[in-house]
């Protein structure tokens, strides 16, 4: 029992509720949300530290003991993800102060961002499968508002498709939970795992596993189910894109990781093979998209899909080393995707376009922006010693060790092509002859650059400090590789 667990959910929730009463006072909104985001970072850092020292922490809501009540569980993985989420949320909020525009600020932008964080942190922390659904809905509801907020034509058009896809996937989630409940008769995730290992392998469990893969795959954008993502993420402004790209898909990836390591690890022949094939296809589809477009937003959006594939490939290999690699890469990717979206947001503010053909020579007037972008792209591709390297190395190595040569090779090749796809932005956008842009002088570039620069610094530190962070991440992977640790911590047997 530890009340620290619920604070990263509770602080944004209360902030969101309070902010609704201050819609007209924008300064108050900015200050309150900044302070609460900082507070969330401090609390989630304390939580991560506590989990690292004392093992998995659980909290039974209303003192209903597991498996009867809803349990919040914070193992190393979820504590780390909550910490990363809090940092990204702060960066995105800080960036929003000067870029999101007064109209959006007046119409509940800050409360909704806070509710989004509630959903994301809740989904990472909960230990109850139906509660996961509820937190998914909290997150999705906020994302519906964020994607449509502003009411431009493209936003309205894309939000309809986004809502439709997610409504269908929510219905499938309910169906998957219904099937699972009829088989195991419980909703507590640790208890489900115990019951499933008593049942052993049965056809219905494979069906449920695939159904969960479809549900979370729709949210996490894996191979045939990513079709909605490039269009929808294209519509909202940069800070919202950063929140979506860094957090929403990763919640789907986290849920696949959690269910495929905690529930469906008995009969891995079919399900994990399927996951592996889909992960490899996801990487290929993402790379093709990233290379095909000359629109900077589209290039980064397709890179989200590539990263999802890499992480899930590590999960599907299912060795302790590959899981460590996946977690390394997951945290790196959340950080770096937020950075890149915020950086291209600045480019769009300066130039007024996201079309690479119309941008050139930016480094002449904005050297700091240029070099930050360069470091971020190098980190994204995984150039040592920056942050993407260690995770990818471990994923690839364990792929070769378990003789999944094709998958490991695709991951390896994808790094090169990813590097090419983002370096294209650097070469064509930052080099070349400088041009004059219309609203250039009004752009608050210095202010906007603070948040992505801090995140880039994190990426560099994360890369150089791999040795120091490794024990923390391997603790997280150990829990995933040995579900008994999770089960014993929750059910206290």
């Amino acid at each position, binding site marked *: 029992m530890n009340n620290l667990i619920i604070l990263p959910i509770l602080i944004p929730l209360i902030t969101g509720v309070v902010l609704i009463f201050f819609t007209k006072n924008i300064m108050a909104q900015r200050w309150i949300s900044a302070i609460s985001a900082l507070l969330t970072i401090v609390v989630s850092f304390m939580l991560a530290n506590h989990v690292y020292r004392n093992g998995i922490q659980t909290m039974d809501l209303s003192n209903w003991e597991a498996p009867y009540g809803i349990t919040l569980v914070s193992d190393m993985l979820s504590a780390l993800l909550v910490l990363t989420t809090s940092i990204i949320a702060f960066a995105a909020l800080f960036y929003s102060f000067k870029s999101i525009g007064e109209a959006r600020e007046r119409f509940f932008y800050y409360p909704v961002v806070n509710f989004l964080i509630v959903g994301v942190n809740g989904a990472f922390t909960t230990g109850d499968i139906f509660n996961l659904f509820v937190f998914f809905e909290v997150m999705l509801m906020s994302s*519906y508002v964020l994607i449509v907020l502003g009411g431009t034509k493209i936003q309205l058009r894309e939000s309809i498709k986004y809502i439709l896809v997610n409504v269908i996937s929510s219905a499938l989630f309910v169906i998957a939970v219904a099937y699972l409940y009829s088989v195991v008769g419980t909703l507590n995730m640790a208890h489900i795992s115990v019951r499933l290992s008593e049942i052993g392998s049965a056809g219905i469990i494979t069906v449920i596993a695939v159904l969960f893969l479809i549900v979370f795959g729709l949210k996490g954008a894996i191979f045939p189910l990513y079709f909605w993502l490039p269009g929808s993420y294209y519509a909202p402004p940069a800070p919202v894109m950063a929140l979506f790209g860094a957090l929403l898909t990763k919640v789907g990836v986290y849920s696949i990781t959690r269910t495929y390591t905690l529930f469906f690890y008995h009969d891995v022949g079919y399900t994990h093979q399927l996951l592996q094939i889909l992960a490899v296809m996801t990487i290929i589809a993402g790379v093709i998209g990233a290379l095909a477009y000359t629109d900077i937003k589209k290039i980064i959006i397709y890179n989200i899909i590539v990263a999802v594939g890499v992480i899930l490939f590590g999960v599907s290999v299912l060795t302790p080393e590959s899981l460590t690699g996946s977690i390394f890469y997951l945290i790196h990717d959340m950080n770096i995707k937020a950075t890149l979206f915020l950086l291209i947001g600045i480019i769009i503010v300066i130039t007024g376009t996201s079309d690479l053909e119309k941008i050139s020579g930016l480094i002449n007037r904005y050297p700091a922006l240029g070099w930050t972008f360069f470091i971020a792209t190098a980190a994204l591709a995984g150039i040592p010693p920056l942050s993407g390297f260690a995770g990818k190395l471990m994923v690839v190595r364990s792929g070769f060790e378990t003789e999944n040569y094709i998958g490991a090779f695709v991951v390896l090749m994808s790094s090169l092509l990813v590097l090419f796809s983002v370096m294209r932005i650097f070469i064509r956008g930052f080099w070349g002859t400088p041009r004059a842009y219309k609203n250039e002088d009004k752009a608050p570039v210095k202010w906007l650059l603070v948040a992505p620069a801090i995140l880039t610094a994190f990426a560099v530190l994360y890369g150089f400090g791999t040795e120091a962070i490794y024990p923390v991440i391997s603790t997280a992977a150990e829990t995933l590789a040995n579900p008994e640790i999770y089960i014993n911590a929750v059910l206290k047997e």
Partner: protein
Amino acid sequence: MEILMSFLIGILFMTATYLMLSKSLLRIIIGTGLLSHGAHLLLLTMGGLKRGAAPLLGEKASSYADPLPQALILTAIVISFGVTAFFLVVAYRAYQELGTDNMDRLRGKEGHE
């Protein structure tokens, strides 16, 4: 009773799929409503249908219905109600702004804006 419910759920899903494949936005929204109804009924049926007893009254109760699926569909109904309401508002606003509710014209190609 379970068989009958299965048929009902199947028909709901079938109708929902048909409606969601149509071009008109309003039909699509009605389709999502039916889809979530089907999912909720499935949740109720999967918990096991029983007659003639209240959910768990005391430890000595000889027969009782499982209260959990009921709590779950209550939650799911509330959520889908909220989402449907929001969806309708967004659809209406999109109709005002874009001047069409035909999904074929909302693809986002050149010239559609």
